[in-house]
């Protein structure tokens, strides 16, 4: 029963998910070629130095950014780029919104709920589907980057283990967002409501983290943003996911999943 439910969940909206996955791969695959076109690490360093200070601040780059972090630092920038984040978050939020609230909205959840399946298993199937999706998106970016590195061969060293660690961090961010939106989905009756809450949360979180860099007044509330814990550069350069990221991103995802489960177990379903 569980396999049938998970397969059904993943198959629904598969075309959109595949498109987003391809978007992520193309975006990350292209990045090593861009690095190479600038002349590898040396070329990138020169380019960063030439940038006006204001623009460097906007991009959160110090003049010696490439000198300190090398090619890995440059590649990490593509993982907290808004295009990449929008692609990944669209897939995650779309799936969680569709899988409970969307099914309540359409009434299709009745097909499943009318069968002798405990609510916990119905929820668990959504969770398994979410984890599969997170793993797919977490590995697709680093694989595409690695393929790009193999083919483009820009100057500079980046190991597979560094990319794997970066994938793990991306997976943790997706898990955090996925867990929290699954909670909202478990309590909602429409996909629109889930997407609305998730978009609001992500946009506010992103801009708090972004503007805190430029405006010191916001600095004290920066830890409230999940993007504060999404330090791609430190992760790829150090080759390890920071402990605080593991705790906060992992923990918030777990909290979201557990609260969502308790809500789904007890709520009335208007199907």
């Amino acid at each position, binding site marked *: 029963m569980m396999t049938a439910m998970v397969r*059904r969940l993943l198959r629904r909206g598969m075309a959109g998910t595949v498109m987003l996955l391809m978007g992520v791969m193309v975006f990350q695959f292209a990045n090593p070629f861009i690095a190479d076109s600038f002349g590898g690490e040396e070329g990138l360093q020169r380019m960063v130095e030439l940038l006006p200070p204001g623009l460097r601040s906007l991009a959160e780059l110090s003049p010696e950014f490439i000198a300190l972090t090398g090619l890995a630092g440059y590649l990490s920038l593509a993982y907290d780029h808004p295009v990449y984040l929008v692609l990944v978050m669209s897939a995650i939020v779309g799936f969680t919104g569709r899988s409970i609230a969307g099914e309540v909205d*359409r*009434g299709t959840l*009745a*097909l499943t*709920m*009318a069968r002798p399946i405990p609510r916990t298993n119905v929820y668990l199937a959504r969770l398994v589907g979410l984890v599969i999706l997170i793993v797919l998106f977490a590995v697709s970016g680093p694989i595409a980057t690695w393929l790009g590195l193999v083919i483009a061969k820009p100057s500079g060293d980046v190991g597979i283990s560094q990319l794997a660690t970066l994938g793990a961090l991306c997976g943790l961010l997706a898990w955090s967002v996925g867990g929290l939106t699954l909670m909202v989905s478990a309590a909602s009756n429409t996909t629109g409501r889930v997407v609305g809450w998730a978009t609001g949360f992500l946009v506010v979180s992103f801009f708090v983290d972004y503007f805190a860099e430029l405006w010191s007044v916001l600095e004290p509330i920066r830890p409230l943003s999940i993007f504060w814990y999404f330090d791609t550069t430190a992760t790829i350069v150090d080759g390890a996911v920071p402990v605080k990221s593991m705790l906060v991103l992992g923990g918030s995802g777990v909290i979201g999943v557990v609260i969502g489960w308790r809500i789904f177990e007890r709520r*009335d379903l208007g*199907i």
Partner: protein
Amino acid sequence: MTSASRSVIETDRLTKEYERIRALDAISLQVPEGSIFGFLGPNGAGKTTTIRVLMGFIQATSGRASVFGHDCWSDGVAARSRIGYLVTADALYPDLSGGDQLEYAAAISGAAPVWRDRLLDALELGRDMLGRRLGAYSKGMRQKLALVAATQHAPELLIFDEPTDGLDPLIQRNFEELLREFRAEGTTIFMSSHDLGEVERLCDQLAVVRAGKLIASGSMASLKRQFSQRVEITFANTIPIGIEHVAGASMTERNGSRVTLHLDRDINPLLHFLACHEVERMVIRPPELQEVFLGYYEQGEAMADGAPLR
């Protein structure tokens, strides 16, 4: 309790409140095993809410609902393992073919679809159609598919909300025949429908709800007995004087030597009166379900007070 009198569905003072609205108000029902039970009421009366409680989709505010002795909320999995529930045709997955839809329903039921072929034949749903996506289906075809998906695993209890909505009369007749066969094989059927003709043809037990309250419940025959019969009498000569004063009878129409009366319960006073007069023709017509239904609605309050119904 003998198997003949065993209740498959039992609700005891079942109440459901949504903030300030009381959707169900102390509904107590017993659905006997092997019966076809009609659950009637206008939109918003509480039919769908009752079915949602029975399916464990929503939790009752107070009271109890059980299916085969299993509490519908706390032991819902055991209850649903014996139920076939008809979802609305719009609730099928639009991206699946008909065949995949049935396979998915079978996979999550945990039971083999032993009645599938029988249902497909009765509903005249061609096997070639099963390969097509739901988007290619008409409303009636989707309803047929939903019926097959709900019933194919041979459940002991079928719960239907408007089962023949969108079916053409010929298929509707086939389906009714199939339900009678299922009943003969021991299946209990609980159905809500606005098609009173269908309910009258199929159901042997009935319950009527209004504004969340149960206002009548029992066998079709016993409920009809509570309503007046219509009697048409054609006399050989003129209508005799005093017929309007016969106990329990009230005249609704007179035309030449023909008179139409509504008769409450006992026919004997009328028969005594007619014994002294020459009657050419007499037709006694029991009330139709529509009259019963409307009667409960128009005079439901009077019924509660014990007054006779017409």
